[in-house]
Structure formats: structure tokens, C-alpha cells
């Protein structure tokens, strides 16, 4: 998926064959996360199994059991306790990790606030899975986006390699700004799909990511109480501090991504990666594996002469406001494809994009699209439909266009695009 370059092998193009690479393996996204945890020398893992995250904990169990990682692995009785364990461990200065998905993440919700409020650099992999009911084990992003306001940094990965690289970056960023980081990968599309992944050399990772040095911790030699009652005279300042750290995280994300690129040969554009936006008139903003699909569609449409481009929201928190505004200055029409929905409003990234642009001097036309919920495939055709819609509309008519919805209206849109593509070919 993705990673197709114009020259040489795909592996080369994707930067897999870099001096920092120990070996290239073909692994599932979940295992990519597990290997990253090993490389990050995580000290405490606490996790509870949930489909489709299980690969992460299974592989980690193997790694820890084999003695390849000197860590305590607490096999807790719930995700809530998983996060509580991570919080406890992290408070002692240890590097902590957990992984979950969907319902499990929702169960953790309270403690996500606790981790961020305690300013703990916990890293969590969340395999994005739709929320029940009805039961679904397939991808969408409502689980993680529901945790938007907990104070966690959020990354969305496009490939198994990016999962690996982002986990490593995440620890560095988290420990720089003292905030927890959630790395999201799409259920099955990444979690259960094998891709070639370059596993970096431990030594280089050690150089990149030194052992954690906690600025504050539970220390019997310096006994302090953490998280006690605080009055209205100081609570706000604590929240302000948390947001300030989130603001600091923007630079940290960019710097760490750059440093990572230098050391490992792969970087991801910081918070947002633009793809073929030069001379583009219409740009689609989206995230996670939808980006890979969109790359195919954009390439195809470009080859047909359509001025389209793509922007990948890699970091959702902090939200890349500056990046979006820069894009908005240059591009007349921007569409946002959300694999999630905020009921009673619209797609969540659409809302955030719109909010980012509102106070910009130049504001593009902004279209909101929703697709791929509960694991429905997002195909290049889906993306072309969306571009087609934007080409045929001067401005948005709806806050959210549900793409692929089985209604007459959406079929109509599909037809319009088909005509357009056909006309171009003629």
C-alpha cells in the first residue's frame, strides 16, 4: 500500500534500504508497532486484548518472553487498568506503552485525561475501529477522535513503516513536551496487512531516543503528592500549561521528524504532508490509509490533466492550523474526507479545518465528505467521486456529503464524475 515511487524499487524509494536499517521484514501493522516498542526500550507494557489490536500484544508477549525486551508486561483485566498501569509506571519515570482499539479506548477515556493531566509521556497505539453498536471490527476513526479533548497528541499512520517510525518519534516528542501520544492505524487495512518494514538498528534508535529522564516523578527521596485537589485559583493555569505544551509539540513534531529523517532516511512532513499540491486548484485533505488511496486517484487525475492535490493530516492533535492556512492561501477549493462523523455536526477533520481557516485572511471554498465508516472500502473511485463533486460545485451545499451512501443522490454524483472522466479520455 502506498510507497510506490517513480524510480527504483519501492523499498528503496520508501527509504527502507538506508544505512540505519537493520533489516527489512514483511510484517503486519500491529507487529510493526510491537517492534517499535522493543526498539524504544519500553519498560512497562500493560495491555488488554481487543480485535484488531491483538497482534500488538501477542508479538510483544513473544518479545518480552524471549528476553528481547527487558520490560514488565502487565496483562491487565481491562483497558482502564491498562492505562492506569501505564500512568503508575510512567509516574515512576519508566517508559510505558499500551495498545488498544475502539471500545477499549472508550473505556480508557477517563484515564486518558489522567495521563495528560499528569503530563506523562505514555505512548499508545490505537487500532482504529468503529464503535458499537452495531458491532463492527472494521476501521473508522470515531474511536480516537472521540478522545480529541483529552490532551493527547494524535498521529494517524498511512503505512506499517510509518507506524514503526511514528512510535519511535512519539516517545521522543512525548518526553520532550511531557504529554502522551496516541498513534492510530486503521483496522485490518494496516493492522492485519503485511508490508515491508525497515527495522532500524537498535544503536541508531538509542542515539535518537536516549533513556527517559523524567523531570518529575514519584521519588521517595523527594516525596510529593501529584494530582491533589486544586482550587479555582490555579486549575486554569494547569490547563493553560497543558495547552502550552501542546503548542510546543508543533515544533517538536517538526523537529523530531526532521531529525528522524536525517538519521533514518524517512520523514513524514511533520504535521501535514502535502502531495502534488503545486499548481493544484483542488486539494483533498484526509488522513491514515485513505491517503494512500487518494495518492493513486490524484496521480491518475493529474495524468488526465486535472489540477488536483492532496494533503495528509498526520498529526491531528495538535491540529495543524498553520499548515492548513498556508494551504488555504494557495488553493481555491479544499475538500476534507472524514472517516468519522460527529453526529449533529459533520466530519471532525472538516470541522477542524474549517475552524482553522475561519480567521485566515484568505479562505478557500471548503467541502466536507464522509466515507469509509465501519470499514467500508475507500477506493480510488471514491476519491475521484469526491474530486468530481468539487469540480462540479462552486461551493459546498452541505456540511457533509456522505460518499458511497446507498442513495439516489450519491449515485448521481458518481455518474457526474464518470461522465467527466470519460469526457477527459475522449
Amino acid at each position, binding site marked *: 500500500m502506498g510507497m510506490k515511487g517513480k524510480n527504483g524499487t519501492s523499498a528503496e524509494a520508501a527509504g527502507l534500504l538506508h544505512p540505519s536499517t537493520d533489516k527489512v521484514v514483511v510484517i503486519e501493522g500491529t507487529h510493526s508497532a510491537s517492534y517499535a516498542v522493543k526498539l524504544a526500550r519500553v519498560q512497562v507494557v500493560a495491555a488488554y486484548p481487543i480485535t484488531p489490536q491483538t497482534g500488538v500484544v501477542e508479538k510483544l508477549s513473544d518479545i518480552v518472553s524471549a528476553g528481547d525486551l527487558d520490560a514488565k508486561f502487565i496483562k491487565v483485566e481491562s483497558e482502564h487498568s491498562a492505562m492506569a498501569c501505564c500512568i503508575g509506571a510512567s509516574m515512576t519515570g519508566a517508559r510505558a506503552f499500551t495498545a488498544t482499539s475502539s471500545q477499549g479506548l472508550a473505556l480508557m477515556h477517563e484515564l486518558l485525561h489522567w495521563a495528560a493531566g499528569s503530563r506523562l509521556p505514555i505512548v499508545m497505539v490505537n487500532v482504529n475501529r468503529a464503535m458499537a453498536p452495531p458491532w463492527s471490527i472494521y476501521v473508522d476513526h470515531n474511536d480516537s477522535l472521540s478522545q480529541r479533548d483529552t490532551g493527547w497528541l494524535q498521529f494517524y499512520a498511512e503505512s506499517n513503516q510509518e507506524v514503526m517510525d511514528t512510535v519511535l518519534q512519539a516517545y521522543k516528542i512525548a518526553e520532550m513536551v*511531557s504529554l502522551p501520544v496516541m498513534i492510530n492505524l486503521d483496522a485490518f487495512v494496516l493492522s492485519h496487512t503485511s508490508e515491508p518494514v525497515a527495522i532500524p538498528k537498535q544503536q541508531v534508535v538509542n542515539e535518537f531516543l536516549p533513556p527517559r529522564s523524567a523531570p*518529575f516523578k514519584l521519588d521517595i527521596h523527594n516525596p*510529593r503528592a*501529584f494530582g491533589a*485537589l*486544586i*482550587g479555582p*485559583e490555579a486549575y486554569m493555569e494547569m490547563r493553560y*500549561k497543558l495547552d502550552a505544551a501542546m503548542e510546543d509539540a508543533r515544533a517538536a513534531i517538526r523537529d523530531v521528524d526532521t531529525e528522524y529523517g536525517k538519521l533514518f532516511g524517512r520523514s513524514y512532513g511533520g504535521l501535514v504532508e502535502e502531495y502534488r499540491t503545486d499548481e493544484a486548484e483542488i486539494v483533498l485533505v484526509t488522513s491514515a490509509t485513505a491517503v494512500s488511496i487518494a495518492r493513486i486517484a490524484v496521480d491518475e487525475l493529474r495524468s488526465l490533466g486535472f489540477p488536483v492535490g492532496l494533503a495528509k493530516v498526520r498529526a491531528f492533535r495538535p491540529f495543524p492550523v498553520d499548515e492548513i492556512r498556508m494551504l488555504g492561501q494557495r488553493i481555491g477549493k479544499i475538500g476534507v474526507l472524514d472517516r468519522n462523523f460527529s453526529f449533529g455536526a459533520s466530519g471532525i477533520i472538516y470541522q477542524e479545518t474549517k475552524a482553522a481557516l475561519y480567521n485566515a485572511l484568505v479562505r478557500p471554498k471548503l467541502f466536507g465528505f464522509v466515507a469509509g465508516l465501519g470499514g467500508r472500502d475507500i477506493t480510488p473511485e471514491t476519491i475521484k467521486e469526491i474530486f468530481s463533486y468539487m469540480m462540479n460545485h462552486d461551493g459546498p451545499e452541505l456540511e457533509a456529503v456522505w460518499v458511497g451512501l446507498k442513495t439516489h443522490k450519491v449515485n448521481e454524483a458518481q455518474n457526474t464524475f464518470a461522465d467527466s472522466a470519460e469526457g477527459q479520455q475522449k
Partner: protein
Amino acid sequence: MGDYRYTTVEEMPPLAFSLESTRNIPTGSWRHVRPVYVEKSSPCQIACPAGENIPAYFELVRQKKYREAWYKILEDNPLPGVTGRVCYHPCEGKCNRSPYDEPVAVHVIERFIADKNFREGKFPSVTASPKSAKVAVVGSGPAGLSCAYQLARKGYRTVIYEGEHDPGGMLRYGIPSYRLPKNVLAKEINDIASLGVQIRTDSRIGGNVPWSELEKYDAVFVAVGASQSSGLGIDGEKLTGVYSGVDLLHQLNTGGSPKIGSGVVVIGGGNTAIDAARSAVRLGKEVTVLYRRTRDEMPAVPDEVNEALREGVRFEFLVSPVKIKGRQRKVTEVDLIRMKLGEPDESGRRRPLPIEGSNFEITADTVVAAVGETPDLSFLPYSFLKKGARIFVDADYLTGVPGIFAGGDSATNPNGTVVNAIKAGKEAAASIDEFLGWRTKSNGAEHQLVKPEDINTFYFPHETRIKVPRLSVGPGTRSFAEVNKSITEERAFQEAERCFSCGSCLHCDVCMTFCPDVAISKDDQGEYIIDYDHCKGCGICVNECPREAMDLVEEDTQWA
């Protein structure tokens, strides 16, 4: 909520953590009552006529500080060896331990302390500066000795005039030596004399020494006791074989051998009657005590009655003599009448009433009349105000004559006990001190009495009262050897441990242990300090104090 110590967000740490102890929060301001340590009075201390600080010397015994314990008693009573043996110990009757299990054996410990200091104990010397005033004491019984001793301690030159050949009064002549060995008495009298008290024996005022002799003194304390037996007031009292209890005991205590037959009848229910009865037992006689009320009304110390029973004395209750019959002027029988109890009289005891037609007689060759004693005041040169047979004194023991004080059994309101005489002597000494212009008596600070329900009995496991070793009936009743024996240190300690120490802090740390506010600590001297900046006044310390040595007092809260 406490003041946050930062003013700007920049100064604040990245997250909420503590920087200091709550010690800096004065939660004592929540308090509306405050605990305080208060020394309260134990009922034994209040009940003790001499006012001995019993909890204090018990604690000293627990600490094995026997010298200090002795000194503690000597503050109030110069005769602990005596009272430890013969006192009727009203302290024990009021002991807060009684309703819990058994009273603490105070007298046993008192005697133990005296015994412990019998040989090597150095009597405390006078620390007060000598005073020029001189005081005469008439009579060397317990009242006189006590008064002279207290005066000597205050620095007065004190002279005791004693008409008998030896000092001690009733202690010597009235109490048999199986209860109070003569050497114990002699030792304690010598101790008193060692303070410079002159005891002039064979010096009977109004006899070989004229009353005018006393005019040389700045003050006089009359304490001649009550040594005159009250008569039975019935026919036959003059027959041979009829003795008064006092006379009989006097003879025995001076080495005499009164002629006593084999069938002895003792009439009376007081201590003299019992002493006479038990002495008669020691002379190998069959003894019957006749008392007109029941055992419950007997004024004698119950322990003594028990001892008499143990030693084979028979008791006939609710009988009264009507006539003593004799032949050839010698007693042969006693006519008796049965009694019943009527309404309570002025003493609070039920009045005995004869049952008509219930007369009967018993055979006896010796009758000991022990129905009460009165003082012999014939030596007084001029008319003193009297009440009944006794010298009237006011609350300060002052007679109607300036400078002349009186106390003990010869003055009003006696109860005929050694310890009350000691009390009279002690208090009279204080009055004399005041009369001579030296010190105003303290008005006796208002004391808080500790009651049984104030004691937190959880802290006191049940323990049985000490059993005093004593001579068994056979050997014990064949001689006048002391019946009750000394106890060991170990036993004394065990008994001392039974004392609740009502109202006296023993630094047992219970208050400190249960303070949720960690507001009680100890200073270098081991004294408790309450941190009122943090004490919230919960009162657990006060409520848990095993011995009521703390109080909760209301804060003087000013509501703003």
C-alpha cells in the same frame, strides 16, 4: 482552599504537585473545644482524711522509687507504718476500681513503703527556716504527733507534753501489738523527734506539770484523745470481772496481765470491742461479742471483724445487756434482751429497739464493756466551750481561747480513728501557722473528682487484689505477734499496677497514640505538648485517656 503560592502561570510547575507539608495549614482554627491536661483528684485522695496523694506514691512504687514514695506520704502523714497497719482505709472504700473488680489495697502499699524504709530510710530533714515561735502540744497520740510534726516541718520549736510514760497515746495503749508492733510505732515517733520535736513524757498537764507551763508558748494544741470508757449504764457494772475495753487494752499494752476468766463477753461493735475480743483470744479465751445492731451497722473495720471471726470469736447480733449478774461480787451471767431495728436515728443507722419479753441470759466470768470512749478534760483550768463531752473547736481547730487549738478525739467532730486524728493535727498545724502570722492557708483549690465512669476500663485488665500474707490462726492467735506480714517488692509492684491513677497523667501515651491530627508530642522532659495550631479538638485524647487526666474545654471563640 489554601493560598496558591504562585502568582503567575509562568512560575507554576508543569503539573499540580505538592511543594510543602500541610503543617503549614493551621487547622487548629477549626477547633471549638480544646483538650487540656488536668490533674484531677482521685476519690481515694479525697477520701483519705490525711489527704495522702495516693496515686502519686503508687506511681513511685511502680517506678521502684521507694524513698520518694515514702517522702510523698510524709508530706501528709508522719506515721505511714502505723496507718499502713491500722487505718480503716476509707480510701479503699471509695476506690474507683471497686465497681470494676476489687479496690486497690492502698493500706498494703502504704505499709510496704513504710516497711521498705524502716531500717535504712533517712527521714527528710526540715527545709523551712527556723521560726522563733514556740508551740506546745498536749498529748502524743496521732493528732499530737501529726501536729507537732507538721509544725516542726514549718520551722517551729515544738514541745509535746505526754502524761504517760511512753509517747503514742492510743497508738501505744489502745491498739494491740498483733496489729501494730511497738517497734514500728517507736520508729516513727523517733523519726518525728529527729526533727527537733521535744517529747516530754511523764509530763501530765494539770498533773505534775501545771497548766501555767503552757503560757510560755505562743500557741497550744490540745490533743489528749478520748481514753475514758463510757459506761454501760446498767446494774452490775462494778462487779469484779467487768472491764472497760480501753482499760483492758491499756493493761495488755503495758505488759500487765489482767485477770480474765475463760468465758469472755465483749459488749460493743466498735474497733475497741474487736481489739479486746481478739486480744482475749490471744489469752486463750472463748470470746463472744454482743452487738445491739447487725453486722452491717458495726462501726468496726470490716476487715477486723473478719479477722475476729477467723480467729474464732463468736458474735451475737441484735442483743443488748440488761444487767450483769454476779455472785460474791464476781460476774457470773449477763442478762440480755433481743433487739430489732427500727427507723434510722441521727447517725443514719437504724435504731435498735428491744423486743419485749425476749430476755435471756448467758454465762460469763468476764465482761468487757467497749461501747465508746470520751475524753478526760478534767485538767483544763478554766471553762472551755464544749460540745457534749468534747472541746468545741471551729473549722480552724481554734477553741474559744485565743492561741489554744484542739483536735483529735478530745475535740468536736471526731470519728475516733487514727487517720482522722492525723488529719486534725495536720490541719491544726496549718491553722496555728496562720495564727502565728506566717502563712495564709490555701483555701484548698477546687478539685475535680474522678468518678468510676470516667475511667476507661478498657486499658485495665481485671486483676485480683493482693492477698496479704498473714499468720495462720493457730500460731497467730497464741501470741501478740503481728498477724499481717510484709509483702515482697514484686507483689507490691503488682498491686501498685492495679491502681488506675485516677486523674493523674502517667505519660502512658494513649492520647498521643490516638491523635488523628498528630498534634500531641513530648518535650525533652517527657511532658506532652499539644500543638494547638493543628489540634482540631476531636476529643479522642480526652475520651481515651485511661484515667481522666484530660479535659475538653470550650474555646473562647470570637465569631467575627
